[in-house]
């Protein structure tokens, strides 16, 4: 059985087994510690939940290969599911298909913008991200400039708005 998360634009979470929907809701509500405003379901990082004999196997995918949040997310999933009554939890990481910012849900994009992080532009297929102007999450201006492509975390670049002069994070297209 496969279900899309209610808010998902593209990412789909494969669930199987008794109470898998329940376990998927618990696991999917875990947040990335570096992006606490967005759940891993909305981020598109949760790939699958399988329940067998009350043993849960959760599959997640990293945003970037070296993302240090993967370990924390993994630990938090185990803890959340144990609290929900699933004592035996295994978290697998899956690299393929590679995570893309297009896996992020519309709800997730709104949550980022609400926290002052410009959400990633949608991209066409192909390895080269399109560079479109980035809208300032504070004042909405498109007169913005990149200060540095490698920002406070792997997934973000640092921008500045030339109208309201505020610096802000931009979630890079990947």
């Amino acid at each position, binding site marked *: 059985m496969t279900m899309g998360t209610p808010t998902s634009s593209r990412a789909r979470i494969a669930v199987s087994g008794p109470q898998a929907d329940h376990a998927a809701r618990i696991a999917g509500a875990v947040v990335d510690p570096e992006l606490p405003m967005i759940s891993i379901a909305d981020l598109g990082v949760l790939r699958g939940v399988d329940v067998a004999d009350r043993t849960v196997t959760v599959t997640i995918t990293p945003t*970037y*290969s*070296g993302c240090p949040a993967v370990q924390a997310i993994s630990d938090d999933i185990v803890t959340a599911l144990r609290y929900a009554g699933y004592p035996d939890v295994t978290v*697998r990481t899956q*690299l393929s298909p*590679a995570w893309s910012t297009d896996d992020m849900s519309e709800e997730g994009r709104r949550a980022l913008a609400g926290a002052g992080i410009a959400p990633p532009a949608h991209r066409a297929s192909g390895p080269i991200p399109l560079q479109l102007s980035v809208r300032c999450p504070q004042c909405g201006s498109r007169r913005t400039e990149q200060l540095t492509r*490698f920002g406070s975390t*792997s997934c973000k670049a640092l921008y500045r708005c030339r109208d309201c002069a505020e610096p802000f994070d931009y979630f890079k297209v990947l």
Partner: protein
Amino acid sequence: MTTTPSAGSGTSVGTTDVAEYALRLGDDALVLAQRLGEWISRAPELEEDVALANIGLDLLGQARALLSYAGSLTGRTEDELAYFRSAEEFRAAHLMSLPRGDFAVTIARMLIVAAYQRELYARLAGSADETLAGVAGKAIKEVTYHFEHARDWTLRLGDGTDESHRRMQRALDGLWPYVAELFVSDEVEQRLVAAGVAVDSSTLRAGFDQAVDPILAEATLDVPQVPSVSGGGRRGNPGEHLGHLLAEMQSLARQFPGATW
């Protein structure tokens, strides 16, 4: 975290060869990540400090996936491979372990390595080995960012002041003898190429030159005309610098085996 590579991967090639190949790619990434990490708190500006650390982190992530896979085929963990092998057991190309040098050397090496990895991973993403294809499909997006970053700096430094131009050209001249090793194929690789698992390194040079030559030209830099060194990093000849790098990288794990925090 439990990383579970897809077992078997549906090919009939020897797992020893696959493990060896994964080690080569993983060691390249690991050793260069360590070199980039040396810049943390020392880069010429804060933004660049963060950029070099982020690029190193991407490479470290790629290395972990590749070393975990190699280890899963040979009964070892990624940490055992990273921290408890001698320099002779590493398989990184010599280019990766050369001292970080000045900022120009770091940028020139990043341009060379990212151009090479971009060609490599674009092709390896179609590998018959699911795990290698998965790592490559992920890495190609990351090394494209690395390449663009190195390109921008190469243009800025090469076509900058007399001093920045002089240093960029000197960096390229010093690194260029080590470029050829990246494009040397051997029997292990050829067996894997025949099985559709590996990419023939010797076929990557044309794409590399097409990517790098125009950037150097635009940056008013010359493609160095220098003889190549013999290399041997893939064959267990680690060169003179890797041992020193490992002494630092491995010291904690060797003093306190199994340490966690």
